[in-house]
């Protein structure tokens, strides 16, 4: 049975975990992965991955500018904003 090291995965998906949470999630994920591993028994030789339920690919509209939200509307839910922009902490020192 595989043993997930949760920390690097949680780091990748940007979720901070408390110690207890980390332990529970690791146990649960190991159980789940052991269950998921049954697909390794299926013969998939020559089978193409199915990415979507329908056969539609690359739907593009004409390159015409359409209507879009005014900045105020787009910023309606921003946690912090200033001068029609989203405010974040300094990134480059």
């Amino acid at each position, binding site marked *: 049975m595989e043993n*997930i090291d*949760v920390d690097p*995965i*949680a780091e*990748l*998906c*940007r*979720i*901070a*975990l*408390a110690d207890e*949470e980390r332990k*529970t*999630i690791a146990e*649960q*994920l190991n*159980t*789940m*992965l052991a*269950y*998921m*591993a*049954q*697909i*390794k028994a*299926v013969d*998939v030789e020559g*089978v*193409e*991955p*199915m*990415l*979507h*339920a*329908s056969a*539609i690919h690359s*739907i593009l*509209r004409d390159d015409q500018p359409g209507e879009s*939200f005014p900045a105020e*509307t*787009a910023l*309606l*839910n*921003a*946690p*912090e904003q200033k001068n029609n922009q*989203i405010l*974040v*902490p*300094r*990134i480059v020192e």
Partner: protein
Amino acid sequence: MEELFFKSAEALGQMLAQKSLSSAELTQTFIQRIKAIDPEVQAFLSLDEEKSLRQARASDERRAKGQLLGPIDGIPIGMKDVIAEKGQPLTCGSKILEHYISPYDAAVTERLHRAGAVLVGRSNLDEFAMGSSTENSAYQKTRNPWNLEYVPGGSSGGSAAAVCSGEVPLALGSDTGGSIRQPAACCGIAGLKTTYGLVSRYGLPALASSTDQIGPFARNVADLAVLLQAIAGYDERDSTSCRVDIPDYRRLLDRPPKPRRLGIPKEYFAEGIDGEVQRAVEEAIAFYGAQGHQIVDISLPHTPYAIPVYYIVMTAEASSNLARYDGIRYTHRSPAATNALDIYFKSRREGFGPEVKRRIILGTYVLSSDHRDAYYIRAQKVRRLIAEDFSRAFEKVDAILSPTAPTTAFKFGEKMNNPLQMYLSDICTVAISLAGLPGLVIPCGFSGAGLPIGLQLIGKAFHEGELLAIAQQFEKAHDFSQRYPKI
């Protein structure tokens, strides 16, 4: 008054047409009903009484001028809180979107406005539609109106319980792996997961983009047809929306369907299916046989892999889709964060509940470079084999009948500490989602404990009309959809 709460949308529409009451009165009556019983049922996260009454009065004005917009004009509808409605909350059942207000309407919301519907409130769900009991909501636990100690199913448990308890005659839900069908079965009402691409996903925050679909809940099949009519159709803003002819679904009903070949997949009656559920579904099959349909034994051999494939594909897609909830642009931002990176980590820790974290982490794992081939890519290949099982079956049959869930509704807390057990609640629904096919659920019996049992009818892609007709034939010969919980 109780009779009014449990009337079909069509019957309510007739009362509006005969002017026995106005839409404003009707809406007020349902809002009072919600206020009276929702403290127990907990189906709604928010109501907008003022806006609903405004919409209802506008409907009454249209009626007075003879400018009605269709059969659901003036009818109250509940919306799962994952479908955007301009100016309304869109919590997705999550703390991370607690204060979010939709800046625009989803495509289906626009369509409901064009049909004159009255959108009364936002219904509860498992956080980001992840769950089969609605217990994962960050806000409240919706109860099953048939027995308040039981879950209503999930993730669209709020919409299902609202229709079931007579709080609204109609509701919309979303179904990624069973989230309309399983709660419909648990609550004993009609629900439809549409063919992938029939209903626009524009304005539905993505969970697993390759299977997410919006669909209707109703008290009976005719209402399901009418609400489907209002929301189905091509939309250029959803790149997976299909250009298909939309029939008049309601007109296909009310006469017995032509004799069909109905497939019974043996894998859906395997170990783990509760005896009462199995008996009720078998009686429904016997009914169809007696009506002149041909009952055909079929096999969908890759069924045992549907749960692992679904939970790999679904968590992978969800881990990517939910990356947008970053604390930067429109979600909760942690006040404890000290720098930009910290905003991500802490906002997501505070904003997401345990199930969402679990799935994001599992999805990230199956997509990570070391495990992608063994899990994600392999699952996509097995997914094709699952879809091909259905294609082969549909060479021999016109529709497939099965249980909707292996058991009736379960008690609160029963599966909360064992996520894998919770996932297995979806064993009869996920394969249909992976294949993108339509699945319709109607009540087909009750357990000894008085809990509803759902029959699932699975159709060829875009054959919703046929499923509705076959389902209605059963409904008309039984009284299951006329039974109401005492609440």
